[in-house]
């Protein structure tokens, strides 16, 4: 769509009508006086939750025979299917955590 002289005229009228930025006149001071304390985000609930979650997982999975076999195989250097499954699960979780961290970093 071509930009005509009439478009310029209308835009010029719109610009002329706009008074531009308003002078401070104490506005900033009034805002700052009303500013409450910033809410402090405590980290301990998050880390407590993570610790409890890890403990719960460990407790649930520790009696799993497949996991025990895989773990023993991995420690012993024997790459049995169970050991590979454990390795793949750990790698998958690490990859997920990395992708999440990158996504959060991009959004910040």
């Amino acid at each position, binding site marked *: 769509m071509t930009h005509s002289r009439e478009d310029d005229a209308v835009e010029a009228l*719109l610009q002329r*009508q706009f008074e*531009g930025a308003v002078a401070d006149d104490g*506005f900033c001071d009034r*805002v*700052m006086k009303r500013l409450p304390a910033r*809410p402090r985000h405590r980290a301990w609930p998050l880390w407590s939750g993570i610790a409890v979650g890890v403990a719960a997982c460990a407790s649930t999975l520790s009696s799993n025979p497949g996991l025990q076999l895989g773990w023993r195989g991995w420690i012993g250097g024997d790459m049995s299917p169970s050991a590979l499954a454990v390795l793949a699960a750990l790698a998958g979780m690490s990859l997920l955590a990395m992708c999440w961290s990158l996504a959060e970093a991009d959004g910040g």
Partner: protein
Amino acid sequence: MADSAAEARVDRALVTRVLLDDDRRAFEQLVRRHQGMVRAQLRRLLRGDETAADDIAQEVFLLAWRKLDQFRGEASFRTWLYRIAWTCFLQAQRRNPAPADDADEVEPPTAPAQPVDLQLDFELALRRLSDGEQAVLLHCVQLGLSHEEAAFVLAMPLGTVKTHATRGKAKLKSWLSAWRAGAAQEDPA
């Protein structure tokens, strides 16, 4: 373009200082940098009611302070503030609906029989546009936002913003032609 990139970097640095160090002086800098245009936006939206505009502007910056961790940097800080201001304006309108204009909003603006003052008449013609058209022209032409930024601020689809901009300008252009024709008739010399 380089100026706006530099401005955006300064804003992001100030936001970071507020979030990491709870630096109130950094937030004061942000307020000083942007209060002028946010208040100007609200004064246009509220048709010159300076008191109401400043009340809402204070709420905007208090909200920005509380929700600063939600500023993700997808838009510029000023655009983010404009969005908060627009939302606060809509909430205020719902609480205190403005009295309806005498003229039907849908009726296209017509040039007066006796053109008096172009700028004055233009203001009246502008008020005859739909709310959407007025809002888009304010944000795109007067505040200098791109269509994409205006869509973000007004929470409208991009296509709707472009349609409002095109239709609003078309109505004003035909009004202007009629006004000039009227002025030429009034004063052929």
